[in-house]
């Protein structure tokens, strides 16, 4: 990969870099997750909650690297950000508080209802909470409206699971790229 290509990829904010024995490697969020790279913006608790929720909403989101994807986009400039939030009426200055506020409220809800963190919930408990978040404004919920937050992270998860060449193939849709993305996403 030439230098211009590397810089281009970095500028898009969709890949992560890591120095290994003096070599800078570019990793997709899924690869970054597999490599256990640290997050830049989200805390471990926030990432854990995000993964637990989105995995239940769009199966495959955790392995695809949902946390690494959201984390990297939150660290990117507005111009380079690839988050769908970009065209949903939220100011870029509020992106981080949008995710953190929603995840914090989701944690509080899980503890209020079941005294557990999201990864510890049973599938039926997760289902009950998702019903609340997606269709109502649970009591004590703060940050972005619960249903809107659910819509956004569901869309993020759909991006990483279905918005790639592998995701297209999973449901039988030919990708037919004019210009293939240099990384899946």
């Amino acid at each position, binding site marked *: 990969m030439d230098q211009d290509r590397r810089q281009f990829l970095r500028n898009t904010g969709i890949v992560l870099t890591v120095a290994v024995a003096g070599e800078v490697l570019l990793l997709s969020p899924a690869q970054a997750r597999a490599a256990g790279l640290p997050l830049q913006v989200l805390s471990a608790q926030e990432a854990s909650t995000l993964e637990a929720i989105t995995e239940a909403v769009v199966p495959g989101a955790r392995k695809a690297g949902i946390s690494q994807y959201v984390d990297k986009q939150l660290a990117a400039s507005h111009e380079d950000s690839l988050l769908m939030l970009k065209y949903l009426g939220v100011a870029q200055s509020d992106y981080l508080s949008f995710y953190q506020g929603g995840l914090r409220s989701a944690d509080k809800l899980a503890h209020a209802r079941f005294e557990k963190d999201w990864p510890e919930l049973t599938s039926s408990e997760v289902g009950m909470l998702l019903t609340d978040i997606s269709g109502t404004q649970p009591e004590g919920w703060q940050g972005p409206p619960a249903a809107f937050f659910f819509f956004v992270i569901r*869309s993020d998860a759909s991006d990483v699971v279905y918005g790639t060449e592998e995701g297209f193939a999973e449901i039988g849709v030919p990708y037919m790229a004019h210009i293939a993305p240099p990384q899946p996403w």
Partner: protein
Amino acid sequence: MTAVKSIPVEDAFDLLVVGSGAAGSVMAAQAARAGKRVLILEAGPARELSDLVSSQIWARRLKWSGAYVEEEGNLSIGHGFNSGWGTGGAAKHQYAVWPRLHENDFKTKTRYGKGIDWPLEYQDLQPYYDKIQAEVGISGDAAAEKWRPPGEKYPMPPTPVFSQGRVIEKGFQAMGMSVAPIPLAINSVPYKGRNACLYDGWCDAGCPIGALANPLVTYLAWAREAGAELRNHAQVTRVIHDAAGRKVTGVEYFDAEGKQHRVHGQAVVLATFCVQNARILLASASDKYPRGLANSNDLVGRFLMTHPSHAVYGLFADETLPYQGPTGGQLINQDHYEQKLKAGAYGSYQWLIANALKPNDLLGIANTRPDIYGPALQEFMRKAAAHMGAMIFVGEDLPLAENRVTLSSKRDQYGVPLAKATHNITAPTEALCQAAVVEGLAIFKAAGAAEPWAGQRFGMHIIGGTIMGSSPETSVTDSYGRCHDLDNLYIAGPGLFPSSGAVNPTFTIHALTLRSAEHIVRNIP
């Protein structure tokens, strides 16, 4: 931060064009072709065809990334989605659905007692539609569009109808309604050195092969070939005028490094789309014009419009393979376009039928059913990927004075107040939308969809905010986009439209701008 009066004038041009989208590109091309010295100032980054990566995730780099626009009202104009960012503006990610406005769109106040009359008639625009159509190329079947206003036939045959279109067409036939191939600014065959379409549905991500007529392969390319200069990351903050307040002298802008510049022009064209045009005018207030430029009658920002739209979806027993074809759709219906007045409702409308769908993103398959998740979503995705059909209702909006762009109390990094866009629809438009959804669901049932459903209402396109007209008391500009208050300040783009019609605006933007460009070229010394 306010403009510094001591900024030296760095350069002078015949024409300053602010914005490199559809309107700015046509304006710049015509002026440059006429031998004028033209500078295009584009707020966003440089974009080339090679940047148009086939991915709905990557495509978000083409969407608005400038100063935040505050929005309120019962139907958002969707500024973040409907606006563009970087070279080519919103036209870079347009879907190239290019129907003409109809003759009954131009004098709605006179004919129906609703809305605002245009200062021109369809017949005034017709030759410009025809010129643009020949130069850019449109694929379609004029004879099949029985509702089509007068005009030259399309220079290319229609794009093919794929299985999704054929399946949905049966519903229209069963309802006694008509369909025709959508007139698309997409090459069905090679045209003037540009490739033919491959029908892979990546229009929203930007077409890098030149089949879709975005500015990078049409007027912006021609403007640059004719000598126009394009400066990217040039954020215009203010239009400046002479001491008498009759003429503008140029603009001030910030570059990527945050350095402020001042350039002069014999004339200035604001072509930064509806919201930013109004914002720049309002933010250019001076001692002579304390309410903002071109705003003597408090009309700048008013009559902001968007096309109220609904998608209708269904799963069919037959294969539809909805990944095939153009994003904008394969077929069109305008059977009822001439009937703007209905019981309790007002407005024309059209159906855009069989839109190509990708799995993800705002308009993708997954978000057509935002209510399902988990294993049910997986099952739905697999079925929908092969059996889903979609079509979109595009309705007319009413120009209302209270729907407007104003300045926020918050400011951007350059000290310019943010724009606030307020947009509400009222009862006649609400009734139009509700009736259309009922009709759409009936069409899909007639086509064989067992349980069709409608998506949430959304605003498609942005229109108005600096409307043209015959009188300074009722409009911001004349029919050429020339501001009533200032002889050499022009507005270009859909912000000029006094009424929205119910067709996609990009073709009309081109035609109207071409008419204005000829006028401007004649009047630049």
